[in-house]
């Protein structure tokens, strides 16, 4: 059982992360709120508790790496990076604007703290595998975390990457599978049923956990279990989540995959986050 003080701190932090996500997408009038909100609790746990990183030294050789394979939900990543101090919070207001370090999809050349440019689905996990393999070959102890979408897992390359991680015993690789059950054109079941993702990741060679991705206790317990695991296998946390989590009119609504709220919707969304609903 996780330390309850920590849980409360992270829950409060996640609330702030959600508000910043909504504010930046509202300001930009463009971006992907749904998947950013479904990943927000896990991202908060990673950035404000789990990752061994140094915002003052973003290229530190021994840092843990993070790969946002579902690159379109970069508002959640940018928020975490800003709140951690990689760049001033005000920069969040430049999302998707000309010359911004906060491109529509993450750009490692522009944005400090972004370990790899992503945006084309299915590709990030392979890069994470390369990073994890490098740590093994160089005898380094850093770990590599990658956030992957369930819709994204339609891409065959995800499974090529997992097989490679298993082959090379990359127990320093942690996949966080954001199982929000929605993708661009509809539900996963309508568009391309993924079936039992826990069984699939296990069959492909991962040590796998299944959690509620919005329950901070479960998230922290899973990350603790990952650290303690001695199986020698790559890790996968399949996290059941709700797309648009925390905003009454966005939850489980396909359209909020890639749409910005108007002023009225934004006010309602902020209220929902602040007060809960």
């Amino acid at each position, binding site marked *: 059982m996780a330390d309850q003080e920590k849980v409360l701190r992270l829950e409060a932090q996640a609330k702030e992360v959600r508000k910043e996500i909504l504010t930046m997408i509202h300001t930009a009038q463009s971006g992907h709120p749904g998947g950013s909100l479904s990943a927000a609790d896990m991202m908060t746990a990673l950035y404000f508790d789990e990752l061994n990183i140094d915002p003052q030294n973003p290229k530190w050789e021994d840092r843990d790496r993070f790969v946002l394979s579902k690159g379109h939900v970069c508002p959640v990543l940018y928020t975490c990076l800003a709140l951690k101090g990689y760049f001033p919070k005000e920069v969040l207001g430049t999302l998707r604007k000309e010359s911004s370090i906060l491109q529509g999809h993450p750009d490692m050349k522009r944005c400090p703290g972004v370990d790899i440019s992503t945006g084309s689905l299915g590709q990030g996990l*392979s890069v994470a595998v390369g990073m994890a393999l490098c740590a093994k070959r160089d005898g380094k102890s850093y770990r590599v975390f990658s956030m992957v979408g369930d819709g994204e897992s339609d891409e065959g390359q995800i499974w090529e990457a997992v097989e*490679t991680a298993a082959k090379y015993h990359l127990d320093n690789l942690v996949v966080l599978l954001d199982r929000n059950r929605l993708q661009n054109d509809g539900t996963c079941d309508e568009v391309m049923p993924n079936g039992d993702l826990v069984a699939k990741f296990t069959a492909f060679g991962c040590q796998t956990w299944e959690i509620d991705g919005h329950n901070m206790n479960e998230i922290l317990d899973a990350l603790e279990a990952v650290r303690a695991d001695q199986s020698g296998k790559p890790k996968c946390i399949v996290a059941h989540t709700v797309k648009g989590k925390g905003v009454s009119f966005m939850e489980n609504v396909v359209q909020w995959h890639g749409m910005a709220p108007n002023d009225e919707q934004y006010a309602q969304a902020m209220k929902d986050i602040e007060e809960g609903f």
Partner: protein
Amino acid sequence: MVQVKNTSHPTRDAYGEEILALGKENKDIYVVDCDIGKSCKTIPFAKELPEQQVNVGIAEQNACGVAAGLATCGKIPFVTTYAVFGSMRMVEQIRQEVCYPKLNVKIACSHGGFTPANDGASHQGIEDMGILRTIPNMTVIMGCDYVSTKKLVRAASQHYGPVYLRFTRDAVPDIYDEDEEFVIGKAKEIRSGKDVAIIATGEIMSLALVACDKLAEEGIQATLMDMHTIKPLDTQAVTKALKECKGVVTVEDHNVINGLGSAVCEVAAELGCGKVKRIGIPDCFGESAPYERLLAKNGITVEAIVDACKAML
């Protein structure tokens, strides 16, 4: 003397030997194989330097991503496969994860052009250099023989950034002496003449060289340039040829669309001067046939080069 010698080698052999030498010198040199290490000559590397080799199986897209990940950690990975797969199966991964972030990844491809002759169209990479040429930050190179390939593989390893390298499956004549030097992006003028210029890339250099010498016998002085790097193109050398000669003939074992010939035409068009004739694959697929027959059927012959040069005069 640069001339067609009696010996020949597949340039994939040159790659296999040089990458092993480089790997022994520098532990950051990696090979990422896709289950065709045998054909691409990286088995000795895998055997002697297993800690610097990764084999992801028949999964080129993943291979490219893994290489990108290795590169972010300071490695210099050479993804090794065939030209068709290296330029098409994983092209979007190259674009997104290698060229856009300008990572130090090399895409090393055997079976360029018609050289996997018997394998047929599915395995003949005839569009590859053109496809890679259109991606920002990419450098595109093909050595024309054993020595130049070795030197260019080494040069690519020392050049920071994405590089596409193309090799031949089959043996092609040796041309250069051991002591010849090569600079990425700089054409080699291997014959000089004021009448006409031949600009060629890759293993068909031997045909161009023979054509050049035949023209000389008839009193026609031809320049011959080895344009081993088609991107960045040595525009200075191309401009000089366009301005000083009566015409330029390009020769390549590649679709005439978007390869060397197109690149030279782009320079001519923007310059507003010079005549260009492209010799290459006339926008059609190959088939299973002897390599020489494939070239001949597609008009890539000594005679065609000689005739094209004469037509410029």
